């Protein structure tokens, strides 16, 4: 196959590309330039957007003996991922930009451009497994599964891509036993990025200061922090910067009536108000979602599953049913309460290791 390997400049994508080469594919490396203003050197824990990272990616491609190109997708990235990030926060929701990047950039713009140029698949360093199942009638289905290494599993952020695109994707690290093993393999292969630190911050927020980034892009907008009965208990610089479940950074000027910690329980963008309350107000048992993507035939009947609402959150037993004529909405009942479910988050439903569906949280109830 002709395979386009996305090279971020990190360890995972380099080893993934190396494995694709070993598997006998005709591999070309591409580094995506996503940020308009790129820093010279990597700072902190950002992992893909500096010129140094692009240089690391090129060096990895040279070691593997594959061609290397830089594709400028910064305009598309700004118009989709960054714009969505800002709009979601402005609307009082909590976006996951990595999910949107996979939806709009990696498994959309990159994949489509690769296909147009004659590539059969895009290979990335994500930790997830694709299983190909041939049915009794000979029909081929592709399933998305959790990675072998549960600690590194990234099926949560990939679920948004849907089944069709799985057929044109490769995740060679899905079976890797651990990140340490991948690092060791990188060393073995002479890849200089073997010791590079993991990235975990949002790549386009230069210094990791998300609140500062939001303030700069959306403008400061002072408002009230209120408790459940509407009493003003503090002030803030913009309700958009708060996330349901957040405890730190509230700057409340007096303690709660019961002296217990208070959390953000609701963000009201229309009135620029942040509502705080006790922890138990955060626990929800019903979650609604839209923009649903199905890996199994959607059904209005309740289907047993496990629900996960955060990249590294624990899944909880649940039942899901599809809503609406196009099955593009879901309703999920949780067997046990889940805390800190915010609108905008990605909701992924599993059956064991297999991804059943993904949706964007629109609301939750106790």
């Amino acid at each position, binding site marked *: 196959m002709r395979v386009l390997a996305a090279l971020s400049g990190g360890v995972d994508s380099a080893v993934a590309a190396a494995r694709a080469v070993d598997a006998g594919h005709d591999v070309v490396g591409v580094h995506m330039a996503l940020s308009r203003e790129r820093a010279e050197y990597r700072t902190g824990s950002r992992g893909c957007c500096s010129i140094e990272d*692009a240089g690391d990616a090129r060096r990895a491609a040279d*070691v593997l003996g594959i061609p290397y*190109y830089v594709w400028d997708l910064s305009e598309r990235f700004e118009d989709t991922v960054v714009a969505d990030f800002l709009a979601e926060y402005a609307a009082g929701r909590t976006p996951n930009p990595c999910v949107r990047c996979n939806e709009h950039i990696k498994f959309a713009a990159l994949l489509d*451009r690769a296909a147009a140029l004659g590539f059969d698949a895009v290979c990335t360093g994500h930790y997830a497994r694709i299983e190909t199942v041939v049915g009794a009638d000979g029909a081929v289905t592709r399933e998305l599964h959790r990675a072998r290494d549960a600690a590194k599993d990234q099926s949560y952020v990939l679920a948004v891509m849907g089944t069709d695109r799985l057929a044109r994707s490769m995740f060679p690290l899905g079976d890797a036993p651990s990140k340490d093993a991948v690092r060791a393999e990188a060393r*073995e292969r002479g890849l200089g990025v073997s010791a590079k630190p993991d990235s975990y911050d949002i790549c386009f927020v230069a210094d990791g200061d998300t609140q500062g980034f939001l303030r700069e892009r959306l403008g400061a907008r002072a408002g009230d922090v209120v408790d459940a009965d509407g009493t003003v208990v503090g002030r803030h610089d913009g309700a958009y910067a708060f996330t349901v479940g957040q405890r730190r950074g509230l700057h409340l000027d007096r303690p709660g009536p019961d002296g217990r910690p208070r959390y953000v329980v609701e963000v009201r963008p229309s009135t620029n108000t942040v509502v705080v309350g006790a922890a138990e107000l955060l626990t929800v048992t019903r979650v609604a979602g839209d923009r649903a993507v199905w890996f199994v035939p959607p059904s209005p009947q309740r289907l047993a599953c496990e629900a996960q609402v955060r990249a590294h959150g624990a899944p909880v037993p649940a039942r899901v049913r599809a809503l609406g004529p196009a099955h593009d909405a879901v309703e999920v009942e949780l067997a046990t309460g889940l805390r800190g479910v915010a609108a905008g988050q990605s909701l992924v439903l599993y059956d064991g290791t297999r991804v059943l569906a993904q949706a964007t949280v629109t609301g939750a109830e106790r």
Partner: protein
Amino acid sequence: MPAAVARAGIRPDDRFVDSWPVTVYLDHAATSPVHPLVVEAVLDQLGRTGNASSLHDAGRAARRVVEESREVLAARLGARPSEVVLTSGGTEADNLALKGLYWARSGADPRRRRVLVSGVEHHAVLDPAVWLAERCGAELVVLPVDAVGRVDLDALEAELTAHADRTALVSVMWANNEVGTVQPLAGVVELAHRHGVPVHADAVQAVGQLPVDFAASGLDAMTVSGHKIGAPVGTGALLARRELPLAPLTHGGGQERGVRSGTVDVVGARALALAVDLAVRDRPEHARRVGALRDRLLAAVQEAVPDAVVRGAAAGERLPANAHLTFPGCEGDALLYLLDSRGIRCSTGSACRAGVPQPSHVLLAMGVPDREARGALRFSLGRTSSDDDVAALAAVLPEVVERARAAGRV
């Protein structure tokens, strides 16, 4: 694969050498194969020890090679030996000309702060000029060009008439590296000298393709590079009139008349001199041959892709080895990848910034819209180019352009 294998890239028996059959190489303006006779000369010289500044016999032998090289360069380029300042290449020579002239001229008269360059200069000229403006108080004046990239002499005249006494220098290239357009240098020199302003020209692409005579050109300084004409990378020279005030960039042992300190590269001097000697000697026949080949290449490309647009000046007014086109609806880097994967090496002609392909400043200066400028490819011919190369390109181009267009629509 153990690390040692991956790191073996600098050994002579390396896999990169073996696995790199240069089949269709249409990127001679980026760098051209080292001439076999130059390889021999380099190998011979590498076996000889001697610092050209030493007084003993080994030093004298080295100095003799350096000075004979200088004499050959001077003779072939219409200069006096004392006008040849050996450098590490074109970029250093351009920097020496821009900064050296600016510092010397503004030092002698602080009013002389204006630096005039054409909008289609190589980055080795543009960037020092911008740097001088940002860091050393220079006033940068970018001269406009017409639709084929030829500098506007009326604009130069107006500028000099108004500000000649405040002008440090003019730098206009001999011929453009991207679109191949030859500049009206005689006009530039005539205007500038009428106003008492010195002129530098980057002649990196011109040597070996056009008749280049430093004295006859009237230029005050001229940049020459080795690796486009059969010498290795890292060789070059600035030809500078003896009386031209030039401040040094590097200070130290005072080599190269005090403007370019550093132990003289004997191997490089010999390689450059031999390459220039051969290139200038063979130029008339070479220019005729590659010019005709270039015309066949353009005809073949336009037959394969009828809406491709040739950029730059007409055949008689451009570098004979240069072909430059834009392909509507395509991204240059997509074309580049598709051709590369089919064994054809060419270039978009423009630099990238941080690895990200940028629309060419040359095309933008010529008034080409941004979107069209992104679909540019430069094919540049050289000593080893043949009709087989043109045929190979023409054979794959329709499919390549069709694919690039599909990718451009995504």
